[in-house]
């Protein structure tokens, strides 16, 4: 069975005990993203702070409904980006997107993606890639809006 290659323990752990979940105030931008195929949805808020002229992700909070993959991915994403400069977080986001587009052939850099390498198996299932990307796309959108707001 290949189920274990998709549903790694890391994914199931994050699914059962999601990190940083729940909406928090204050925030700089809020977005609501939906996967129209299945109806999975996420509302995500971002708070940025200025550290020596550089925008840093201070907090990401979210409320979501969805499958194990979309829930776990949002949890792992929040772990990865909170506390990071926006530029670095965007690089991680890009690395995750490339992993998802790799059709199971990707060799993820654990130094960059940390727990998110567990999603490598998901990239073999085209129907599930959108699940894994839902939280990330919401984060990217919210960050872009928050950055616009600060300029």
């Amino acid at each position, binding site marked *: *069975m*290949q*189920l274990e290659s*998709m*549903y790694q323990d890391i994914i*199931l752990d994050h699914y059962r005990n999601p990190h940083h979940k729940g909406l928090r105030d204050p925030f700089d931008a809020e977005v609501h993203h939906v996967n129209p*195929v*299945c*109806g*999975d949805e996420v509302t995500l808020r971002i708070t940025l702070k200025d550290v020596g002229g550089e925008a840093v992700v201070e907090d990401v909070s979210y409320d979501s*409904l*969805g*499958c*194990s*993959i*979309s829930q776990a991915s949002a949890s792992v994403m929040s772990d990865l980006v909170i506390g990071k400069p926006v530029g670095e977080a965007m690089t991680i986001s890009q690395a995750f997107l490339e992993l998802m587009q790799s059709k199971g052939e990707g060799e993820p850099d654990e130094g960059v993606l940390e727990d998110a390498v567990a999603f490598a198996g998901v990239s073999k*299932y085209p129907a*599930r890639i959108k*699940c894994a990307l839902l939280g990330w796309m919401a984060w990217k959108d919210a960050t872009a809006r928050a950055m616009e707001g600060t300029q």
Partner: protein
Amino acid sequence: MSAYPEHLDVEAVRADFPALARTVRNDKPLVYLDSGATSQKPVQVLDAERSCYELHNGAAHRGTHLLGEEATDVYEGARAKVAAFLGAGAGEIVFTKNATEAINLVAYALSGPGRLQVRPGDEILITEMEHHANLVPWQQLCERTGATLRWLTVTPEGRLDLDHLDSMITGRTRMVAVTHQSNVTGTIPPVADIARAAHEKGALVLADAAQSVPHQPVDVAALGVDFLAFSAHKMLGPYGIGVLFGQAELLEAMPPFLTGGSMIEVVRMEGSTFLPPPQRFEPGVPAVAQAAGLAAAVDYLNALGMGHVAAHEESLTAHALDGLREINGVRILGPDTTKDRGGAVSFEVEGVHPHDVGQVLDELGIAVRTGHHCAWPLHRALGVQASTRASFYVYNTHDEVDALADGIRYAQRFFGAG
């Protein structure tokens, strides 16, 4: 007690479907429980389509050569066959791309010029149970015309709430559009009764028959509807061709929808006149091979007997309802008996998201649908975000229903639920 005797040689049927012989993930045999989305195709349909391309490939309704004439015969022969299948006249059958396009055709015709034109203040009545294909086109019609969209709600059991039918259909209601079989709950609403109530108030009636024509005997006269729409690909036929049945005098009163070649009478730079129905609604070179495939699908279903098809599915549905009811943590959406209920069985598994249920079943070779099945308002009404759906057809077996139940239990164990 089934309304029809069960007499269907499932093993012989299965031998006609090449796709059922293949294996899927982990070299498992395919258990195809997603016919509500699209059915598999028998070799008779594939042969009809291929033979049309090999022997009769000319553009129908044009040209003076033999191939074109033969193509016209194939196409018009298919129309006559579909008409007979539904108890309609051949002139009342319009070929479209699919059921969605057929419904849009009617919705656009009602916002165009003519005696059927919907005006501000008019009302369109639909239901919460509809597939988006019989919902969004009516929302859009109301936006174009200033008409008001109203809808019947569903009961917790997944039936239409008809208590207020008489007050919901008013003198201003121009169209009542209702599913003939829910693609989610399998519910079969009393379309004939609804049609009678609508006609008493002067409203038109359209039935979305995408899930009924493939699965039960359908007679448009008995139903009493003005329009009926369905797709070939859900009834053993090819993709890319669907059917709109419309009462002759209504089609006659309707302006064209898509325009261009084949549907015109005279074209001048200043303006054009149009052919009578059904040609008025069929612009461009017709999908002759697809029509040949659809005709072969109708032949195939006729040979099985639609009563036998319905009885076979009823027996599988009863088995599935019994099997799923026994599983702790599984909630079936919709009626829990086969009375006025077709073979789409949607369910929730407590603690396991439908996507994850579907993934585990896929790993076992079992193909189901997950998500909201293009019926988002219905899911909202039933209090669920999404569901898993198994849907049955002529080639499914009782062993496959058991495999589904075993697969759900496996998913529960995998995710530590149930």
